[in-house]
């Protein structure tokens, strides 16, 4: 079988994470972020082909706070989904410190070992925030990337303290974290806003969100 050059193409992530010119307008250069939250990232090298880009992110509240999540309704829920869901049920939506995320490997369809690894990520983050004494971890966990492979857990747990050391509240800290959770995304997705509530309009609140996703996207979460 002969393939012409135009037929024989394969995909590889760009060597540099340059944002396409047409997408630059979607990437903010400043932001106003909620008080008491910190963002950080670090390099773990989860995917062998990634030799330099941060692939572990931490979003942390300086004090424990209420949290919740919605999860995929896919019946093959990945380990971090199962573990985070359990944490939320056990802690009853109260007293969470934040979330630790890795990109490069989804920790999906990885069985008991996968769930142990997801829990290890959560407890490693707790150890950094001084919450390790809790019976139930206070940090939710997320993973994204290739399905059906085990996490290189030591690389990740070694990177979590570095991500914690890199925590900060500036726009660049949030942007670094938003970039670290990307996979085939061509640009980081980060939005921050301020708002007031009618009953006390003198107080300005902030809300910020980051997301990632480019393929395998048809969410049906509950």
């Amino acid at each position: 079988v002969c393939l012409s050059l135009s037929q024989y193409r394969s995909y590889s992530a760009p060597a540099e994470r340059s944002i396409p010119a047409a997408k630059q307008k979607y990437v903010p250069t400043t932001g106003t972020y909620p008080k008491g939250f910190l963002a950080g990232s670090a390099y773990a090298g989860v995917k062998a082909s990634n030799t330099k880009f941060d692939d572990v992110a931490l979003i942390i509240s300086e004090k424990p706070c209420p949290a919740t999540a919605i999860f995929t309704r896919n019946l093959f829920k990945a380990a971090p989904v199962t573990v985070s869901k359990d944490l939320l049920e056990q802690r009853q939506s109260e007293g969470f410190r934040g979330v630790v995320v890795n990109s490069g490997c989804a920790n999906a369809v990885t069985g008991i070992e996968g769930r142990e690894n997801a829990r290890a990520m959560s407890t490693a983050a707790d150890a950094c925030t001084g919450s390790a004494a809790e019976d139930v971890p206070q940090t939710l966990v997320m993973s994204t990337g290739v399905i059906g492979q085990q996490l290189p857990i030591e690389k990740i747990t070694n990177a979590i303290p570095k991500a914690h050391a890199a925590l900060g509240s500036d726009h660049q800290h949030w942007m670094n974290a938003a970039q670290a959770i990307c996979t085939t995304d061509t640009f980081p997705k980060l939005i921050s806003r301020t708002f007031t509530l009618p009953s006390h309009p003198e107080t300005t609140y902030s809300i910020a969100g980051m997301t990632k996703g480019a393929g395998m996207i048809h969410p049906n979460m509950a």
Partner: protein
Amino acid sequence: TLLAIVCTDAAIHPESMQTVLREAANTTFNSISVDGDTSTNDTVAFFANAAASPEGVQPLAYPEMYSKNGRLKKKDLRPAPNTDPDHVAFLAALTDLMRDLAKLIVRDGEGATKFVTIRVRSDKNIMVAKRAAVSIATSSLVKTALYGKDANWGRILCAIGYAPMLMDSPEIPMRSNPIGFEPGNTSVSFLPTDGSEELKLLVRGEPEKVDEARAKQILEAENLEILVNLDDRPERTGHEDQREAVFWTCDFSHEYVTINGDYRT
């Protein structure tokens, strides 16, 4: 996979966190599709640390709208409107943020060259409208036609036509006689995003004489809106209370295959 993290320094009652997040997700992250594949890992986490909340201000507490099994408590699938101005303001802020994040994902869909808004109106039920929107958004033939700038509205009708057969959401289980719509009352248009007049493709089941040059011009743009009315009955006055489902998707290009042909290896 979709992952999202949302943080606010407002005060939300812990027992209301789930209600407010789910309410915002239904019309935002749960209303997008790039390729029709639901991931094993999709997660949206939401934190509210009250760090900006003045002392003495009570945390926002929303009435519980979901039962333990995750179904909406109201039979008509429309939660009772929460009229407390603070509740309305916060939910609007959260929903706006999540909607804009969701749209960014569609704009970055693997290989995507177009951002498509699908707006489906129905007199009967929001789920009928949403199912039709999902059907259009996940049709490979609709998406490849959009990539090729081909105004192949027959494919859009085809996708709408089989939508009722696919309804198996927890709110509306599969029925032998699903809630449907009359093809003779269905109208479809392309809405240009430059504010110019809509291009009618089908009016009450009858095809319009389509200006192919204008259709091509509309499809050249990065942004496109498809408007479907499932209940465009002749006797309508225009003042009826229609339900509208809005769904966002992108086109389907060669690049998608290139990216995913060897993603694992």
